[in-house]
């Protein structure tokens, strides 16, 4: 994989987080009686930069590796190879105390506010834990901090003495956010933070996350499967498929000019809450292949609808390369490409690259 595919938004002197060629593979033993092992390539060569104060959305369907990516960055899961630099320092080189100290700066908000809180601790104790462990405050000062945090996330300070089961889903997610904020992190990985919530509560939490980002200058890696939520939250968006980033652009550009045929299909599949719109949709055939046996060449080729798809797509792995201003995508058949026509022909290509943007991909979302 080539260097930083980072359409820099121009904020900050250097990225807060630099991820290069990250791979997280899991070895799975097959069946009860031995018989071979398979390697699941959950994250398979991911590179990106995250700039201070921005929100990078990561979208993709189940099994695309977006959750594993988030966990690998926090080192909740160890990567197989690659590098992660946080504010210039090599995260993967840290061990023991140094790693724990670094964790203060990187926090996570989980999807499920029901299982991510300890049912035996009051929420005050849960929030205070990080403050005490990282020695940010103690005693009465720590308790005062907990109360301020609860107020900041829209909960009453006196709730500190209550237990998780006394709260609704939306309130628990606010507790989860307060817990993450307690150690004053710089980067928060939000892993599907609103997908378990009802629409009315989801909007409250989205607004809260945006307010906190503005007030505290937070940087978010926002992982979600809901494309509308991601468009709303993110400054830039990366689309993942089978462990790889297949497209990365500013949110505005990605939703208006999706380049990778998979992104186009994904956008066209989003139900639009407008019954007057006549629906055109790219319905993908079949299911996502197993990350244990990704197809050769372009991982999306078996389901691709690009009119120029041909034998070269089955043989050449398309590089993640510039397709427009601050816009990278992995597709041999979308112009421009650095994979020459001669090289494509050598791999059996019969259709030269052409720019393809079906109306379904954009019309469906009602963009001008």
């Amino acid at each position, binding site marked *: 994989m080539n260097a930083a595919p980072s359409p820099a938004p121009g904020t900050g002197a250097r990225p807060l987080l630099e991820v290069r060629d990250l791979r997280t593979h899991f070895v799975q033993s097959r069946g009860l009686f031995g018989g071979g092992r398979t390697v699941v390539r959950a994250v398979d060569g991911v590179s990106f930069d995250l700039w201070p104060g921005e929100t990078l959305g990561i979208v993709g*369907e*189940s099994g695309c590796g977006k959750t594993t990516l988030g966990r690998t960055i926090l080192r909740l899961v160890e990567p197989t190879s690659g590098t992660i630099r946080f504010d210039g320092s090599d995260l993967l080189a840290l061990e023991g105390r140094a790693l724990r100290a670094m964790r203060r700066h990187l926090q996570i908000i989980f999807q499920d506010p029901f299982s991510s809180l300890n049912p035996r601790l009051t929420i005050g104790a849960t929030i205070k834990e990080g403050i005490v462990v990282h020695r940010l405050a103690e005693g009465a000062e720590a308790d005062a901090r907990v109360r301020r945090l609860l107020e900041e996330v829209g909960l009453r300070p006196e709730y500190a003495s209550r237990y998780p089961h006394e709260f*609704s*889903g*939306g*309130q628990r997610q606010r507790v989860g956010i307060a817990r993450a904020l307690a150690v004053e992190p710089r980067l928060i990985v939000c892993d599907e933070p609103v997908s378990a919530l*009802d*629409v*009315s*509560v*989801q*909007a*409250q939490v*989205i*607004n809260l996350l*945006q307010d906190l980002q503005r007030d505290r200058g937070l940087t978010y890696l926002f992982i979600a*499967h809901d*494309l*509308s*939520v991601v*468009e*709303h*939250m993110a400054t830039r968006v990366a689309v993942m498929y089978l462990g790889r980033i297949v497209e990365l652009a500013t*949110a*505005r550009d990605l*939703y208006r000019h999706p380049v990778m045929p998979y992104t186009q*299909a*994904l956008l*066209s*599949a*989003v*139900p*639009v*809450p*407008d*019954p*007057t719109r006549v*629906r055109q*949709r790219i*319905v*993908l055939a*079949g*299911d*996502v292949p197993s990350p244990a046996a990704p197809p050769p060449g372009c991982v999306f080729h078996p389901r691709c609808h690009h009119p120029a798809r041909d034998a070269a797509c089955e043989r050449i792995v398309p590089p993640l390369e510039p397709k427009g201003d601050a816009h990278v995508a992995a597709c041999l058949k979308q112009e421009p490409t650095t994979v020459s026509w001669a090289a494509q022909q050598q791999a059996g290509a019969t259709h030269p690259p052409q720019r393809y943007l079906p109306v379904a991909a954009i019309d469906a*979302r*009602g*963009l001008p």
Partner: protein
Amino acid sequence: MTPPAPAPLLRVENLRTYFHTPGGLARAVDGVSFSMARGETVGVVGESGCGKSVTALSLLRLVQPPGRIEEGSRIWFEGRDLMTLAPEEIRQVRGNRIAMVFQEPMTALNPVFTVGDQIAEVARVHDGASRRAAWERAIEMLSLVGIPSPRERASHYPHQLSGGMRQRVLIAMALVMNPALLIADEPTTALDVTIQAQILELLARVQAQFGTAILLITHDLGVVAEAATRVLVMYGGQVVEEAPVRTLFAAPAHPYTRGLMQAMPRVGMARERLVTIPGSVPPPTAWPTGCRFRDRCGSAFDRCAREAPTLVALDAAHAARCHLAEGAASGAPSGAASGVPSGAAPPRTARPL
């Protein structure tokens, strides 16, 4: 849209399903009335705890204790009141005339039988088909719902199939007896968006081919906009708005419906603040007095606390449960929305329209 049938396929009148729990009486479904024509798709939208899933279970009389469908509830289906049927008779209706597809296809399938066996069993039980005929029928159904190489897939177990495939199997199972009504409870919620698109397309095709009426229960307004012709919005165990889908999106009349629509992130308003509905859904053991939405409503006034609003007809097909809708309703033809069927006993709180 389906032409108006002389008698509706389904007419639910004042359905009340209460759960008698130690924590108090939970009025999960509390006076729901609506009707459905043959071949129609009606969407039921609402958030957790609004009573939409309990409504679905009640139609099949699948509510388990401590839940109970209360006296006075009526479920007219194909000319019979399902509430009066003996257990054996209601079993004949389930699967035969009304079938259901659930949200989580893995838990709805039996992991130790092949999918072919499970579909074939429906044909054997309800149709008395022979083993061989039932198996052939299973393969035919798998092919109908778009499963590639159905003969081979029939002998696979549920865990060998993807989520989308399992949901297709469940739909195949539901359609074996060609039911008149298919109840789909969040059928695409557990699925990825591209697979959701496939399943919605399948449901539309099935409906066109067999004229099956579909009651589509979902929290997703996008799914409703695409799949339903008419919509019921539920809140607090009641229908708070009923309208043809285009009317609902063009002119939502209930503050809750408007709130839901504004709370959704939408195209073109990226990174603007979302309009939210304050608070959360109250527990069904403690609905507020008067209007159940008033605590969260920006338009509430003193009357909302004193008096529970009724479903007010705005026109022949559009009704909303809101005091503020009454002004707009004056001059509207009476007889009104199908939720208040003419000739049926009026709901307890009915006022002259």
